[in-house]
C-alpha cells in the first residue's frame, strides 16, 4: 500500500512587491497511515504554508506552488481538479487552526458549522447532520452537547472552541488531520487537555496527524517522528527519541538547548544568536550559516543537501553529515 502522504521537493513561492519569498523551498517528507508527524520550526519557516499547499489553499496571488509534487495515497494532489480537491478537503484531509477565537464563523451556531461539513461530504440531511454534530461534540468531551450545539461561538471559551474545531475536523473521519499550532493560543492546562484529547481520538479513529508547532514539548508528547524546518527547508528529520538524545543539525541543537530544564541548575537560557533570515534575501550557501557556531568555508558557498545518515535520520549540514561532501564533490 502506498504511503498516506508524500511531499517530493515541494516548492511554494510568494511573488510579492519586495521580491520572491521562498516560503517552501524543496521540502520532502512523508507521513505513514495512522502516524503522528511533528513539524517544528520558528514562525515564518514555512510550516503553515506547507500545510496550506497540501490542501492547495495557498492564496494565489501572491502564492503559487511552482515545483515538486504532493502525493496523497499515491495520487498527485497537484493534478487534481478543483472539484476533486473540494471533495478531499475536510473529508480525507482536515485541518485545525491556531486561533480558536477566529476560526469559527460568529454568525452560525457550533452545531450548524459542524453539520455543514457533514452535509457537504456525507450527503446527510440537515436534521441528521445536526444529530451527528451532537455526537461529535460528545466525542470531543464537551459537556451538555445537546445544549452547546445550539450555542454561538461567542458563548464558548477558547478551549471549548478548539474542541468544536476538532469536532468539525473529525466529523468526516479524515485520514489525515493537519493541526497548525492547535494549542498555541490556549493556556497551559487547556493545552494539555486538548493534546490528550487529540491523542485519544487518534487511537480511536486511527487517523494520521501532522502536528505543526514551534513547541518541542508538544512534539515530545505527541509525535513519533519529527521534521525540523528552517527558512523554507527541511534541515533534519528523525524519530523523536533520537532527536532529543542527539540532535544532528546545529539549529536543532540550538532549539533543544534553549528549552528550560527543571532537573538541572541553569543560569541564563541559551539563545540562538542572530535572527531568522529575511525570506526575500536569503544568505548564500547554507541558510543557517550566519547563526551557526560551527560554520566552515563550504557552508558560505554551497547549499547542503538533505542526507540520510542511517536509521531514518536525515540532516542537511556540511559539518554534521560529512559523507555528503564527498558525494556532491
Amino acid at each position, binding site marked *: 500500500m502506498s504511503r498516506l502522504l508524500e511531499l517530493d521537493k515541494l516548492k511554494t513561492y510568494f511573488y510579492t512587491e519586495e521580491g520572491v519569498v521562498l516560503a517552501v523551498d524543496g521540502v520532502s517528507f512523508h507521513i505513514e497511515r495512522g502516524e503522528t508527524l511533528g513539524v517544528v520550526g520558528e514562525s515564518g519557516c514555512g510550516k503553515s504554508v506547507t500545510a496550506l499547499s497540501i490542501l492547495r489553499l495557498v492564496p494565489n496571488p501572491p502564492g503559487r506552488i511552482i515545483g515538486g509534487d504532493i502525493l496523497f495515497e499515491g495520487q498527485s494532489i497537484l493534478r487534481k481538479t478543483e472539484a476533486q480537491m473540494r471533495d478531499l*478537503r475536510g473529508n480525507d484531509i482536515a*485541518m485545525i487552526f491556531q486561533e480558536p477565537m477566529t476560526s469559527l*464563523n460568529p454568525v452560525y451556531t457550533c452545531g450548524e458549522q459542524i453539520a455543514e*461539513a457533514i452535509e457537504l461530504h456525507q450527503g446527510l440531511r440537515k436534521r441528521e447532520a445536526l444529530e451527528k454534530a451532537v455526537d461529535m461534540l460528545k466525542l470531543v468531551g464537551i459537556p451538555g452537547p445537546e445544549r452547546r450545539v445550539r450555542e454561538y461561538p461567542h*458563548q464558548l471559551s477558547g478551549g471549548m472552541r478548539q474542541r468544536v474545531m476538532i469536532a468539525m475536523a473529525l466529523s468526516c473521519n479524515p485520514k489525515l488531520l493537519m493541526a497548525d499550532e492547535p494549542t498555541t493560543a490556549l493556556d497551559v492546562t487547556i493545552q494539555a487537555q486538548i493534546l490528550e484529547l487529540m491523542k485519544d481520538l487518534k487511537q480511536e479513529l486511527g487517523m494520521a496527524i501532522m502536528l505543526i508547532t514551534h513547541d518541542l514539548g508538544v512534539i515530545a508528547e505527541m509525535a513519533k517522528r519529527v521534521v525540523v524546518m528552517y527558512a523554507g527547508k527541511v534541515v533534519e528529520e528523525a524519530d523523536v527519541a533520537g532527536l532529543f538524545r542527539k540532535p544532528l543539525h546545529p539549529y536543532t541543537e540550538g532549539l533543544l538547548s534553549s528549552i528550560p530544564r527543571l532537573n538541572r541548575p541553569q543560569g541564563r537560557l541559551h539563545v540562538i544568536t542572530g535572527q531568522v533570515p529575511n525570506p526575500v534575501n536569503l544568505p548564500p550557501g547554507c541558510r543557517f550559516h550566519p547563526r551557526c557556531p560551527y560554520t566552515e568555508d563550504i557552508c558560505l558557498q554551497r547549499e547542503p543537501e538533505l542526507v540520510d545518515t542511517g536509521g531514518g535520520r536525515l540532516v542537511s549540514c556540511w559539518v554534521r553529515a560529512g559523507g555528503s561532501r564527498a558525494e556532491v564533490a
Partner: protein
Amino acid sequence: MGYGMDGLWARARRRLGRNRGARAGLVIVGTLAVAALLAPVLAPQPPGRMDLDRVLLPPGPGHPLGTDYFGRDMLSRLIYGARVSLTVGVVAQSLSATVGVTLGLVAGYCGGWTDLVIMRLVELMLCFPDLLLAVGLTVALGPGPYTLFLALGLVGWPGMARLVRGEALALRDREFLEAARATGTGPVRVLWGHLFPNCLSPVIIAVTGGMAACIMAEASLSFLGLGAQPPTPSWGSMLNLGRPYLHLAPHLVIFPGLAIALAVFGFNLLGDGLRDALDPRRSDFPG
C-alpha cells in the same frame, strides 16, 4: 457567556427595544407601512374622487386635512401617497442592495483584477450627482413607476458596493473563511454562506438609511413631474400641485411636506437605532 440560549438577533432586538429613538422610528415606519398596506380601508374617500363644489377647503369636518384644487380629500391622497413612497423605496433599495452587495462581495473577496474593474465602475458611477443621473434616466426612458425604480436603484448601488467591499476586505483573511475552505466548501458558498452573513448588519443599516434617501429622491422627482404621474397621488407631486395655492391654501403643501419629513425622520431614527443595536463591538454592559 451570559446570554443563555439566545443569539445575535435576539440581542439586537433587545437593544433596539431599549433605544427610545429607534422605538419612535419603528412606530413611524410601522404606521406608514400599515397606512400603505391598508390604504383602501383607511382612506375616507377614493383618492381620485373630485368634488368641484368643495375645492381648496381648509382642514375641517368631513375633510380632516382639507381638499385640493379639484376637491379631492387630502387625507386620502396622503394615505395612498404612502404606497408610492414606500414601494419606490423598497423596490429601489432591493435593486441597489442586490447589485451592490453582489458586486461588493465579489470585489472584496476576489481582489486583484476583478476588484479593480468593479471599483473603477463604482467610481465612475459616483462621479454623477445622484439626482442628476436619476433625472437624466427618467428623461431618457420616459417617466413612470419602473423608470423610477430603475433610476433610484441605479443611483444607490455604487455606495452599497463600496460599503460591502470594505467589509469583505476586512473579513477575507479571517480564519473562519480559511476553515470553511479547508472543509471543502465551494467558493460560492463561502461567499454567500460565510462572508455575506458577516456583512449583513452594515447592509441592513445602509438599506434603512437608503430608504429615507429614496423617499426624498422620489419626492424630488415627482415634484419635478418626473416621478409618479397623475392621477397617482404621490407626496412629491402633491407638493408641486399645491405650490400655486401657497397663500390661498397652505395646507396643500404643509401636509405632504410633513409626510415626507416624517417618513425620512422615521427611517433615519430606525437606521441610527439599528446601527447601535447591530454593532458587535458595543457591549450590553458598559464599564
